[in-house]
């Protein structure tokens, strides 16, 4: 019973601690500005006047938000670098595992071959 009560209290605390957080002001504008420069955006149908006005505003905002785009590129470069690092560590780990496999096999092999001059 006490455990159930503890769980309920913890759950209540979690719900309170995890109440939603707002992104910064201009988040939606940031999305639209990014959309304006996104080469993969889907083709749009013929524009209404209201949509055309909105796009003119977005184009003007994109000049100001050019710095923001540059920041995003930096984020992308960082992601690529971290991915390369992750792959490197993974490659070294696999290499280490296979060296260990070889060492165990050499130590306990039933039939090991001497180093051979293959193809020379």
């Amino acid at each position, binding site marked *: 019973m006490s455990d159930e009560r503890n769980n309920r209290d913890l759950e209540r*605390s979690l719900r309170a601690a995890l109440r939603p957080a707002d992104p910064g002001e201009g988040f939606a504008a940031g999305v639209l500005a990014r959309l304006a420069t996104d080469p993969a955006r889907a083709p749009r149908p013929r524009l209404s006047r209201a949509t055309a006005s909105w796009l003119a505003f977005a184009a003007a905002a994109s000049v100001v938000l050019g710095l923001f785009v540059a920041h995003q590129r930096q984020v992308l470069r960082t992601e690529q670098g971290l991915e390369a690092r992750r792959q490197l560590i993974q490659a070294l780990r696999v290499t280490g595992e296979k060296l260990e496999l070889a060492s165990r096999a050499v130590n306990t092999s039933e039939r090991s071959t001497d180093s051979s001059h293959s193809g020379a």
Partner: protein
Amino acid sequence: MSGEPAWTEGTLLERASAGDTAAFAALVRRHQRSVYSLSLRMLADRFQAEDLAQEVFLQLYRSIRSVESETHLAFWLRRVTVNRAIDRLRREPPLSQAALSEADGLAAEPSEIDPILERRLRALLRELAPAARAVVLLRYQEDLDPTEIARTLKMPLNTVKSHLKRSLAALRERLGNEDPDGRSLASDARTLT
């Protein structure tokens, strides 16, 4: 919001699918808090969270014609946000403590619990593995039941339940062990209520 027609979400979806950018922007504003909060609590970094949340909406724009209903939209946003966050966490090493301390962004409403406990819970949440963290967030932030969580994450229901059980146990144990006065969580709960 001023100047924004009170369209239903269904209408906004239809209009956005037809290329109405204003309707799309309205959808963004309606869902940005949920998407951003999920990103923030998964990634524990405000800049990364904002970047991820924007990416999710960009992807929504490209895929909007495949979203069938308001319910589907909410499901779609949660799934894409969590999957992208987990992908990022798998690619990147853990954040420094300095970055973690900045990740407790401003919540939309004032706290109902002790702010120290609140910070501690968020910090402990960040120590959970990505999949477990996602399950806990979908349960206690998004208020999904385990079956909905299993659908969202494409995870077996028993795995969801197991994550919840173990995560709560781990959180309870850590909070109990770390109380400076040696009081258990049960004592704290009596104080909080």
